[in-house]
């Protein structure tokens, strides 16, 4: 497991805080409501730890994932408890849309939310790291957290971002996770160090 110093972790936290905040602003525009974020925590962990974390109270989850490539490669995943995803779609479309139509539109709507939110996140990361990331198309994912993450088991490292967002009056909440391939960790560390150099004397 790669070891990041406390300062590097703090930098990662701040970098992801900024990028997720931009994403929350994008989401806020879509659903026309204020999105609240918790204070972020970053954990570098293996798949089992991430699965255990995501299983807290949510047997089934759904979300949108987007693979990105750059000096480091990985996947950004936006996750909702499954029972809340329709609520999100309802917020997007307005309250007068019939339930059957909502269900029909659910997948399209979630993909669109994921696309906007994750792109805002990655654009912000790209600005701060002064690097370009190429993004693949967003993919809908659903199931339990193990099935969601098991493809990343062998030797991969996850950056588990404990950022919970909520839309207070609608009891909607979710998580954002970044999965970074093990072979990309060195490149990520170098990017963080370069970011820290911009701060001047530590």
């Amino acid at each position, binding site marked *: 497991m790669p070891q990041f110093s*406390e*300062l590097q972790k*703090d*930098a990662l*936290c*701040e970098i992801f*805080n*900024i*990028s*997720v*905040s*931009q994403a*929350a*602003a994008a989401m*806020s525009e879509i659903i026309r409501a*204020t*999105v609240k*974020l918790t*204070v*972020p925590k970053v954990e570098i962990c293996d798949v089992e730890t991430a699965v255990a974390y995501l299983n807290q109270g949510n047997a089934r989850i759904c979300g949108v994932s987007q693979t990105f490539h750059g000096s480091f490669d990985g996947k950004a995943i936006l996750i909702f408890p499954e029972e809340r995803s329709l609520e999100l779609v309802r917020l997007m479309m307005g309250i007068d849309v019939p339930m059957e139509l909502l269900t029909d539109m659910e997948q399209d709507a979630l993909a669109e939310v994921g696309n906007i939110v994750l792109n805002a996140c990655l654009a*912000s990361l790209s*600005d*701060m790291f002064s690097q370009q990331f190429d993004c693949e198309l967003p993919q809908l994912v659903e199931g339990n957290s193990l099935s969601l993450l098991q493809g990343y088991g062998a030797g991969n490292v996850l950056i588990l971002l404990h950022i919970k967002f909520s839309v207070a009056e609608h009891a909607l909440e979710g998580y954002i996770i970044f999965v970074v391939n093990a072979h990309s960790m060195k490149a990520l560390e170098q990017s963080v160090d370069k970011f*820290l150099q*911009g*701060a*001047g*004397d*530590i």
Partner: protein
Amino acid sequence: MTNKVLIVDDSRVSRIFIRNFIRQLQPQWQIFEADGGKAAIALAAEHRFYAVSLDYNMPEMNGFEVADRLKAIDPHCFIGLLTANVQRSTQEQAQAAGLYFYKKPINLEMMQQMMMDVEAYYAAV
């Protein structure tokens, strides 16, 4: 008298960025740092600050709650809210609270703008 500035941010990295930019732009200013609302309020009870650089998303108290407490101690102090939370509701709330709003990430241009705002703020008082 030396102007005192208070940096309130739970991120050590952010405090380093802000501190170094202020040193560069206002080398004569005396810089204080707090890693959260409680420490900031304790410092404000001891010192009169010319300007406060305040993060929004912090544990225990968010930036607006801290600003309320700081304004209760010194209603005339300049407070700049530095945040990546660029939602319209946050900007409106900052404006209503009399706070200056700065969008993270922290960079030299943003800090230069804040220094100009501080000068304009006191020139208008």
